């Protein structure tokens, strides 16, 4: 069923060209003029920054009597929430992170001294090049002083590098890779909320202790997954277990069947899911389709957020062990915060990433107020490290020299449907891991800032 193809591709050009008898010179000058005209017109459109602006209302306490002049890059202190608003991490961070940042700004009254605070946000689509381009434009053109959230470790690492160059601040609440405070640590970056070491130490250790001594990893093939696999393997072997193998899958994979088959073939007792967000949800769903649990193997979600459990539903997620830094139902303070958050965010409870955005912005603004300037990123971070933290979401904590924020972590287990009293009542606490134990000790750190 084929037509012989006699027309040549030159027909493409023949149909493109109009009759060009005379006026070749005119055409050429015209094209040059067209170039100039368009370039000029287009350049005029360039001033527009590529992000959404929003100034939260300062509904806080009355302003101070002394007019404090606070320095910022522009005429306001600008917080840039760089997050994933449409992809596989949109539920655990995304718009919720923006809401959290705005809540933090409202708490200080919408301004520091006499300088207003603004929140802007952008979608990095989990791509390092998009993320770094937005970050660069934010810092060069839009006078953003601090970038927060940044889920997806590959983007966070790229942005951390840029932020160091431009001497601004990065408060990374979203990413997980422990590299951010390891080899790639920076005096301008604070790694908030959690990291792969904490996850490995929490979930990993707990599972090995309860008999899961052979592991097979299903790893998202980028910085975060690789870091998580590495840290968890170390914990497993240190606790006397064995890693039987691993398989890497692309980020946002559509079909886990062949990877799960390999996991099943390995006969490992635990299939460790070194991925997050949408990937974890889909892997768990596929696993139930292929009868993984019936074959005697257990799934370990190494990074699971409350948003994932909500998406999976308790019947599928029950029994999962996970390590989080924050749970909305932990105590009165977290409940109060979460209620306010849920009102602004479609009734969804905050994940630990979103809570981390809130906490990091609060602490940042405190430090800027003390320092009276947001201009020097290194100085602000140094100030943040100097001041201990105490907030409604993580309680008391400190920021170490390598930029690691430490606070207690919590090992939870997902309730069975019978145990749950209502929506979002998903976790029961197994163990609190004290701050000193949860994160990689400074002595083991590969961060050059520490090795002095």
């Amino acid at each position, binding site marked *: 069923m084929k037509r012989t193809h006699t027309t040549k591709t030159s027909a493409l050009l023949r149909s493109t060209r109009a009759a060009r008898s005379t006026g070749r010179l005119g055409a050429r000058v015209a094209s040059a003029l067209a170039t100039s005209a368009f370039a000029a017109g287009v350049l005029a459109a360039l001033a527009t920054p590529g992000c959404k602006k929003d100034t939260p209302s300062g509904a806080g306490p009355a302003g101070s009597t002394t007019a404090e002049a606070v320095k910022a890059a522009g005429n306001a202190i600008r917080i840039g929430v760089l997050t994933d608003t449409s992809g596989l991490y949109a539920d655990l961070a995304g718009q919720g992170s923006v809401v959290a940042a705005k809540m933090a700004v409202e708490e200080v009254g919408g301004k520091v001294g006499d300088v207003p605070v603004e929140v802007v946000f*952008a979608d990095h689509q989990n791509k390092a090049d998009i993320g770094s381009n937005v970050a660069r434009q934010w810092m060069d053109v839009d006078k953003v002083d601090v970038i927060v959230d940044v889920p997806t470790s590959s983007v966070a690492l790229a942005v951390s590098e840029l932020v160091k160059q431009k001497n601004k601040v990065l408060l990374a609440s979203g990413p997980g890779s422990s590299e951010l405070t390891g080899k790639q640590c920076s005096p301008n970056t604070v790694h908030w909320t959690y990291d792969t070491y904490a996850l490995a130490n929490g979930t990993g250790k707990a599972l090995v202790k309860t008999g899961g001594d052979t592991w097979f990893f299903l790893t998202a093939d980028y910085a975060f997954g690789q870091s998580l696999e590495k840290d968890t393997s170390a914990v497993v072997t240190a606790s006397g277990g064995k890693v039987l193998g691993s398989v890497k899958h692309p980020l946002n994979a559509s079909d886990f069947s062949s990877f799960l088959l390999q996991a099943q073939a390995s006969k490992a007792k635990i299939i460790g899911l070194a991925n997050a967000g949408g990937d974890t949800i889909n892997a768990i769903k596929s696993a139930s389709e292929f009868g993984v649990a019936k074959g005697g193997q257990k799934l370990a979600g190494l990074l699971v957020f409350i948003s994932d459990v909500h998406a999976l539903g308790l019947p599928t997620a029950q029994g999962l062990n996970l390590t989080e830094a924050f749970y909305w139902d932990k105590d009165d303070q977290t409940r109060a915060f979460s209620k306010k958050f849920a009102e602004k965010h479609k009734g969804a409870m905050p994940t630990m990433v979103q809570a981390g955005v809130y906490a990091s912005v609060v602490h940042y603004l405190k430090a800027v107020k003390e320092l009276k300037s947001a201009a020097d990123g290194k100085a602000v971070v140094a100030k943040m490290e100097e001041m201990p933290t105490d907030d409604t979401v993580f309680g008391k904590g400190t920021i170490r020299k390598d930029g690691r924020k430490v606070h207690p972590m919590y090992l939870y287990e997902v309730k069975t449907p019978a145990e749950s009293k209502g929506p979002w009542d998903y976790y029961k606490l197994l163990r609190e891991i004290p701050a000193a134990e949860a994160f990689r000790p400074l002595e083991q750190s590969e961060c050059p800032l520490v090795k002095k």
Partner: protein
Amino acid sequence: MSPLKDRDAAAFLAMAALLAVAPFVAYPVFLMKALCFALFACAFNLLIGYVGLLSFGHAMFLGGSAYAAAHAAKVWGLPPELSLLFGTACSAALGLVVGALAIRRQGIYFAMITLGLAQMVYFVFLRSDFTGGENGIQAVPRGKLFGFIDLDGTMTMYFVVLAIFLAGFALIYRTIHSPFGEVLKAIREHEPRAISLGYDVDKYKLLAFVLSAALAGLAGSTKAIVFQLASLTDAHWTMSGDVVLITLLGGLGRVYGPVVGAFVIVALENYLSQFGAWITVIQGAIFVLCVLTFRQGIVGEIASLVDRARARPPPT
């Protein structure tokens, strides 16, 4: 022929002057991005506009050279000029291999083959360790050009990029208006006749392909050094689609077409970046409109308007 050459020189100088002034008015990083894409599109246009071959896989040259140059600058510590050369050379080599395979067919088949081979190259990049997979090669040092020009400064970097772009553009222009270029056009117009005249058509096509690949590689290496990042996006097939869009919109087969197209598209993407997926929709719509009603592209349309205006007698 000299009045022609004077006009061409004037046009070129006008463009160069405008671009030299631009960074004082607009965000230089945006301009550098547009220039890299302009060079990329000019290289692509060489193939489609003057040889008649639509390559739907040109991203493999952009991405491949970006990785090569980034690797050379970061891991081997080469100075930027050598990294750029290395990147360009790698693309040219890849172009040779791919071209040898693809030249065997024409038209849609050629497009499909280049697409398939580019996808293969993409997956090789995805799997390889040296590319860093999804992370890409980050923190690529800008270095000191020729040992003393520090490229960390934005303005310095801009003028270097501008120089590279103008050099590449001039090279393409010279190629088109040389005996070699005339043979290419002859092949495009009527290949059997060119063969009957004794030209080794395949060699000419391959040479043009390698040249196009090399210049695309130059654009890619420059981009990697400017943005200090080489990522999978540069080698993804959507990037191949982007360059087709830029050239189609600007004007296929027009020397300045890709330049105009690049600035318009990059500005569009910049302006609309907060709207995320709308960019894809608008790009698709531009494709559809261009193919249906606007086949000559911006430059082509303006040129034919000028032609018609000159041909029409002045109103009495």
